[in-house]
């Protein structure tokens, strides 16, 4: 269980999150959506204990603000929106860095397994800095995956926090990565992911939080949050949501046009 209550966060004197509440449940994929600059990454930074904030975040009954890095690392992995890398590491070496946070003996076999999951088998010996943006993002995902490989460990769920995991990816790899999140949740783990693609979100998320200008406008099932009015208002453009007949659960925001103002 992840509960965040009354999260207020600032950069310098500018407050960018104003008392946000947010919850996520293990076994589900929970998405955070909202326009650029609305505070999604900032919320992720609070949820993962990266930045200081007012309010409380509990992850598996652990107070995130006061937990030690190694305590948090044992239960959750974090994929940042972008990851600069100093020094010329190979793909295998980058993924292996993710193993360093736990007991690593005998876990080396996870590296090829993780690379296989993100579709990078054959890239082991390539230099990270010489990969494309989407390939780099998938290497980082593999690094995060080896850190929390088992979705449930010692009877409690583990978590993946993903900030825009698919924004740099082509459609095939988008589906592949979302399926990884889906499988992790189905196996009992928790996934919190920032998304821009509302269609993918509707397809893969069980629960969505919509942020606008530092406020959590709505949180709930995608079909409840993705309404014409809420999306149009949050994104500042006309969005019409349609339910695809094939499946009751998935929705298509189509016919989006710029708001005429």
């Amino acid at each position, binding site marked *: 269980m992840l509960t965040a209550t009354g999260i207020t966060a600032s950069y310098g004197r500018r407050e960018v999150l104003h008392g946000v509440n947010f919850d996520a449940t293990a076994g589900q994929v929970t998405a955070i959506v909202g326009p650029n600059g609305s505070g999604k990454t900032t919320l992720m930074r609070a949820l993962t204990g990266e930045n200081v904030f007012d309010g409380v975040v509990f992850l598996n009954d652990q107070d995130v603000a006061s937990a030690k890095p190694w305590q948090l690392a044992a239960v959750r992995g974090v994929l940042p929106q972008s990851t600069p890398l100093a020094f010329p590491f190979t793909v295998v070496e980058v993924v292996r860095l993710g193993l*360093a946070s736990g007991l690593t003996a005998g876990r080396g076999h996870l590296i090829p397994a993780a690379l296989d999951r993100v579709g990078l088998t054959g890239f082991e010996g390539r230099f990270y800095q010489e990969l494309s943006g989407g390939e780099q993002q998938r290497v980082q995902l593999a690094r995060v995956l080896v850190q929390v490989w088992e979705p449930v460990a010692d009877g409690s769920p583990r978590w993946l926090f993903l900030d825009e995991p698919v924004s740099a990816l082509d459609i095939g790899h988008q589906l592949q990565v979302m399926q990884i999140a889906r499988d992790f949740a189905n196996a009992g783990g928790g996934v919190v992911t920032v998304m821009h693609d509302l269609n993918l979100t509707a397809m893969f998320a069980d629960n969505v939080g919509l942020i606008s200008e530092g406020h959590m406008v709505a949180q709930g099932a995608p079909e409840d949050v993705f309404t014409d009015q809420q999306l149009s208002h949050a994104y500042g453009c006309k969005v019409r949501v349609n339910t695809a007949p094939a499946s009751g659960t998935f929705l298509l925001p189509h016919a989006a046009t710029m708001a005429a103002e």
Partner: protein
Amino acid sequence: MTVLTQNPARPHLAGDRSRIATNMTFVLVVLLVLASLFSLAIGAAGTSLWQGLSDLAMGRDLSLRDRVVLFDIRLPRTVMGILVGAALAVSGAVMQGLFRNPLADPGIVGVSAGAAFGAIVAIVLGGYLPAAIAASLGYYVVPAAAFVGSWVSTIILYRVSTRKGRTSVATMLLAGIALGSLTGAFSGVLIYIADDAQLRTLTFWGMGSVAGATWSKVLAALPLIAIALGVAPFLARGLNGLALGEAAASHMGISVQRTKNTAILTVAGATGAAVAVSGGIGFVGIVVPHLLRLMTGPDHRFLLINSALLGAALLLVADVISRTVIAPAELPIGIVTATIGGPFFFWVLLRQRGILDM
């Protein structure tokens, strides 16, 4: 519980350079042993000690002259070369990991200058220390002062050039220049007021040399360097994590603040002690880690240890060169390392140009 849990034979993965890096460690140990033998055997004025060394190995007695040359002149000089070379190379490697940049080097960004300033303060003003303190610190006054000097410089440099866990390379290099000239100016003032005897000490020391190594100097440098070299391997995981940035390192369970503090102290200790006993020997800290990263990758679990070994071996070789090229006179070793290291630094700069343009 099975006691005999064996690691399944690890299949070799492409891109996993840990085996090459481990083999490199063995190669470097051999290289260091060879360099040490050369350093012991070869010296000025044809006093080759190969015969003496083999006599010693066979358990035969040495002549008095050979014994004096070997144990009172060559051996302390060799040990000093090993200590200083290892310290400089490890300082460079740790500093580069801390700043996430291959151009960070104590000599280039003013940390050695800070150490030198500390040492000069101790040499020139040491006489004003209360007798009790001076007596209790003994040989360690100069290294201790150099340590403080390099520590303060590293902290200032880190504060100025790093923001939210990202180092601006340009700011780091410029801050290094400012720091170097500032401490250089302070040092100049002290040199100006130094008396003749102190001046002679300073001049000799400032050229950068392990000549004139004595056991007392070795002992003076030993504690700080031994601690720094002993601590460095524990930094490996933290520095590896920092390569992904502070946030990612923390997410992986690394205590970032502790890693940074330890790294700064390690750099300060190793640089301070090395500068205190050998003056300004430049470029070891940048050449050695860079070569090793090219050959065996940037993983600090191997890089730090291998840097210590290669740094020690390289400094011994440079020292042998320095005492033989213009024999019977000696070239200060700082000149030898600068002649090799200067062009090397240019080369690194050219390779890094894309990053510097930021």
